[in-house]
């Protein structure tokens, strides 16, 4: 019990911060209320440091837990900076004009606490060692986001988006909960190590398989993969830009972590009928993910090409990125001892961190600009015309947008290239040549719309008429700057992150890759006595 608690220290820190923020955000003093953002960021930062130095997890991928928690918390810091000023802008203005403070009309406390709740949920996903835990963590990630979308702007579109998101999210949750129930029905356990050991010893039965399929499809709502992607564009467009950035990273990360944990239950060493020990998922799951990956990246990209709103383009491209990452899931961790380039899981984990940064940068450029609406209120920019000549007018936002969109495109030598490359190489190493070709074609299609961002900002002259104004929140531009600096520096000095993601992707208890050669920091052999039997069992099966 205490071991499990030690594992949860980062989440507990974030939760405590949430409690503080909830109270502080209701303070009658404006300065105190404004400290919510700083408090949240500090809490996340402390949580990140604790996660980095914390113990390895007790699941099938012990290294995954500290890595993904640190990534979520650190990018969470950037996201908290990015959401500055999203709510309470009019209320603050009214109070500063001499109005009376009304605690019922301020939204800051719940806004920041919901963000922190959602981040806590995502971090808890990484700690999950049980199906029920995983379900609760996923829901903790998602439920606050429904509210965040709704309250992010005062327009009716946000409310519509929130409602859509909630209902469709419930549908997705129903599907994966059904899947979880079937997995329990098929194996008799909800604990990951037990399920893995049973599958390893007895093979995968039909009920478990059906449960896995439904669970995967259901969780794919979180990552916005086909066929659960329909909500994406409407919701992303309806929410305020900073919240959209949040949606594009946090639920997606939680979803991918969950998928990795679920797939680790069955392992990647199932034989095809060619050799004694194969290197793939069970053929049905492989086919499922294959079809999903191919459709997700293709649909995301082709729909992004025809959009006219930058936010919708980024929304659809976020679908496409999920498609790319699914390739890494199919490839799996490769042979034991496989380097970074052959480990699909490491590729996905690296990609998540890289995508988080590039995503923050791209949205920071959008969130850093605004226009005056007809009634004089600030409204978000939502057309490519507003981005024209941005590099000349506002170099920081402009170059952030250019570099991040080129990086998202995967242009060497930027970070996006180095994160996409291992997806290709691991895909090739696992023999998924056709899928890799599909991914290559899709990367080319993505160039259409990402280059449009870069070209509009860098090459075109500003359009006539009123130019967009800078949003009066320096924290937003700063988050963009931090993202820009990190994207560029990781492009050249990404070794440490690659090594970390490689260590995070060591799958224990799955067949021949049983024993990790280099356990991640803090991992103690004694922590994992449960996993000893499933680790040994497949080896026997190989022998027989």
């Amino acid at each position, binding site marked *: 019990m205490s071991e499990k608690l030690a594992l949860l220290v980062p989440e507990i820190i974030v939760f405590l911060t949430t409690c503080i923020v909830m109270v502080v955000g209701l303070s009658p003093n404006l300065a105190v209320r404004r400290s919510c953002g700083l408090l949240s960021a500090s809490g996340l930062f402390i949580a990140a440091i604790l996660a980095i130095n914390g113990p390895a997890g007790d699941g099938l991928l012990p290294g995954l837990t500290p890595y993904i928690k640190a990534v979520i918390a650190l990018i969470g810091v950037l996201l908290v900076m990015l959401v500055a000023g999203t709510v309470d802008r009019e209320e603050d203005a009214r109070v500063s004009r001499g109005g009376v403070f009304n605690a019922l009309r301020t939204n800051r406390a719940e806004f920041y606490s919901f963000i922190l709740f959602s981040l806590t949920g995502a971090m808890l996903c990484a700690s999950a060692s049980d199906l029920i835990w995983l379900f609760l963590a996923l829901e903790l990630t998602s439920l606050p986001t429904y509210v965040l979308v709704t309250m992010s702007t005062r327009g009716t579109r946000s409310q519509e988006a929130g409602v859509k998101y909630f209902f469709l999210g419930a549908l997705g949750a129903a599907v994966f909960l059904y899947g979880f129930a079937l997995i329990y029905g098929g194996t008799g356990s909800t604990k990951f190590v037990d399920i893995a050991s049973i599958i390893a010893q007895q093979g995968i039965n039909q009920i478990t398989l059906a449960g896995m399929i439904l669970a995967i499809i259901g969780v794919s709502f979180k990552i916005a993969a086909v066929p659960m992607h329909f909500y994406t564009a409407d919701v992303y467009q309806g929410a305020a830009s900073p919240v959209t950035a949040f949606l594009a990273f946090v639920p997606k990360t939680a979803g991918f972590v969950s998928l990795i944990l679920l797939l680790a239950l069955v392992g990647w060493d199932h034989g095809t009928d060619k050799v004694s020990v194969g290197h793939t998922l069970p053929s049905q799951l492989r086919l*499922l993910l294959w079809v999903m990956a191919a459709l997700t990246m293709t649909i995301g990209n082709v729909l992004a090409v025809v959009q006219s709103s930058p936010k919708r383009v980024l929304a659809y491209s976020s679908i496409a990125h999920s498609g790319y990452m699914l390739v890494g899931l199919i490839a799996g961790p490769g042979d034991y001892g496989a380097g970074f380039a052959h480990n699909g899981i490491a590729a996905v984990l690296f990609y998540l961190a890289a995508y988080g940064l590039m995503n923050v940068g791209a949205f920071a450029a959008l969130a850093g600009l605004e226009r005056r609406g007809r009634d004089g209120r600030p409204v978000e920019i939502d057309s490519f015309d507003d981005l024209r000549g941005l590099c000349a007018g506002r170099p920081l936002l402009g170059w952030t947008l250019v570099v991040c969109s080129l990086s998202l495109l995967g242009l060497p030598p930027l970070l996006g290239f180095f994160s996409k490359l291992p997806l290709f190489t691991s895909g090739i190493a696992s023999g998924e040549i056709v899928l890799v070709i599909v991914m290559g074609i899709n990367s080319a299609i993505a160039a259409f719309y990402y280059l449009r961002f870069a070209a509009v900002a860098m090459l075109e002259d500003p359009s006539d008429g009123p130019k967009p104004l800078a949003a009066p929140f320096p924290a937003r531009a700063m988050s963009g700057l931090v993202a820009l600096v990190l994207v560029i520096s990781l492009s050249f000095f990404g070794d440490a992150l690659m090594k970390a993601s490689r260590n995070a992707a060591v799958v224990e208890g799955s067949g021949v890759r049983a024993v990790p050669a280099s356990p991640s920091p803090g991992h103690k052999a004694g922590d994992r006595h449960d996993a000893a039997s499933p680790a040994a069992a497949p080896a026997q099966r190989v022998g027989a």
Partner: protein
Amino acid sequence: MTIASDIMGSILHGALGAPGASGAALPAIEAGPWWVSLIPALPLLACILCGVSAAMRIKSKLPAWITVGCLGVSFALTAAMFQQLAGGRSVTIAWEWINVAWTDSGGHERSLIANFGFYVDSLTCLWMLFVTGLATLIALYASEYMSHDVGTGYCRFFAAFGLFVFSMACLVMGDNLILLYLGWEGVGLCSYLLIGYFYKKPSAVAAAKKAFIMNRIGDLGLALGIFLAFVQFGSVEYKVILEAAQPWLAAAQAGHFDEIPATVQLIPILLMIGAFGKSAQLPLYVWLPDAMEGPTPVSALIHAATMVTAGVYLIARTYPLFLVSEYALPIVAWVGALTALVAATIGMAQFDIKRIMAYSTVSQLGYMFAGLGVLTSTGAAFHVFTHAFFKASLFLSCGAVMHGFAGQLDLRKLSGVGFMKGWQFVAIAMLVGCLNLAGFPFTAGYFSKDMILAEAFVTPHMAPIGWILLLTAGLTAYYTFRVFFRVFVGPKYYEPGDEVHAHSDHGHGDHGHGEHGHDAHGHAGDHGHAAGEFHPHAPGWAINFVLLTLTVLSVGAAGLYFLGDHGGWVGKMVHASSANYPPIVDLAAHSGEAADAHAHADHGAHGSFLGMDPHKVMYYVSGIVGFVGIAIAFALHYVGRKTAATANADKLVPLLGPIPKLAQGKWFVDEVYDLLIVKPLHLISIVFAYIDKLLVDGLVNAFGWVPRGVGSGLRPLQSGNLHSYAVQMAGGVAVLLLIVFLASIAGL
């Protein structure tokens, strides 16, 4: 066994000594001092500062002084490095650049290590001394020469100049082939930028492109050579490669080239192609004469003294590899000798004095290659060293003439320049340079040329090369003094070149020459050149100082010959490095008098010159040949010459039939290349252009509208309607389940 292997075998036979003697090879490698890294870093700093100056729109000579200062310090450091060296070898690693290790499919540990490390031995010092020294002097010269362009162009020039010296330092000092390649490409780039400095002039742009493309052909060979060296030796570092070649030297000595792997023998041949491109040898020499479109200081530094000797350096640096190859050195020797001859014949018939110097550079480079080929790496290095000084001085003298006479370079339109007021220094510099180039006795050029000539006759089977080189020496003396007798002496006459008008484009008004310290020439008057009044302006202090220094240095270089046995000071430098021949040195046996007779005494087949010992007789023979050449030039171009345009030589021309025409047309090599290579390639490119237009563009366009079409087709599904979304999601789940189910049944 082929003739070539016979040649290499018999050459190496006596020289190598007992096969077991390889223990006494080269001195151990030490860690060098950190400040060695500053030698390349300072020129780079100069380049960056010049870039900053350009950005700040500085309109003064500041970039020149920055460059001269940085290069000067760099030269001082090189001198310090030379002092510290004391016959050893050292490697200074500035930072780890490439360090990759992996396990190949066979389970072998492989690694690719290419550091920004600087390998310093005596050969490096030799090269760096004249590279940084000349670069400093020529930058000083250029500060005046380029003064009509003060502003952005001035900054651009010196930025490229600094970058060139940085690249050259990387090329020479790099401790691995990758860094050499980096420098190699860097100097190529700078050469391109500086040839095309007058980028508004179409001929300059064409020349820049020609130089770049010709070099690329050679660079391909170099790159392949480096790849192959890595495949063969598992490393690109000199310390590994040079050691790795040692075991095969014994086999080469015995003439058993079939025991040496073919890849090892192929490596030097590929490297050699790179060297031919960079050093303008047959068949890739045609870019160098055209490169004279660049400003003269560039021609002097890059296209005469330093960059073009990079090929010689490459071969000298990897000499052990060349020694174990059956064909490499014989090819080098023949290519060098033929280049020397062909370029000399073309040089005889040209009228543009800078172009004549360009052909003489090609010709002298041919000498150096021939020297390498006939196994006198010492002679080749010595010739590189002396040539650097006297050729730089010759170019700069021509440049001074060009600068003073508004771009006039035609020797038929200039005469008696040496007798004009203020031109004495130039004339003296020119005379000393010409004497060196012609191989006049007791000049530096005479000694270095002799070494190559003598060795060509000594080395078995190489006598034809000796005869070619001897003939070339005579031709060289003739065409060199043809320039001198026509331009610098004789009746005074000049026609200004066409840059009189070009000058006015630079807006003379804003920088009257008087400010720049050479107001004595009365140049102010020629601003009104509309009336056709032109006064040549004699060079100022910077140009005169540099010319004088170079003259002293090229005279002084002769003294180096007496600073030691067998090749003098340069010989010592080469002996202490990997470029030494014979390759395995017993250093103890080499000191003292025994050294002179080191290899020759053992030579089984010691060559001779008409039955005499070439080492003794060659001093007289080449001196006589030089005299004869000068005398012919005197008779044909000085005696009885009344005007600038005509001389006695013109009477001879009809007697020679079509030969002068052909030589003046450069043997129409450019036209032949055009017909054989450029035209067919152009034809192919037209075909490909159509394929590209119709097929590829069509595909790309299809690629463009297919996603668009699919996207538009899918768009209606994104209706924004919650119900339809839910139905589609449920439908999607059902379809996926169906696919998996059907696939399970079908047994996929």
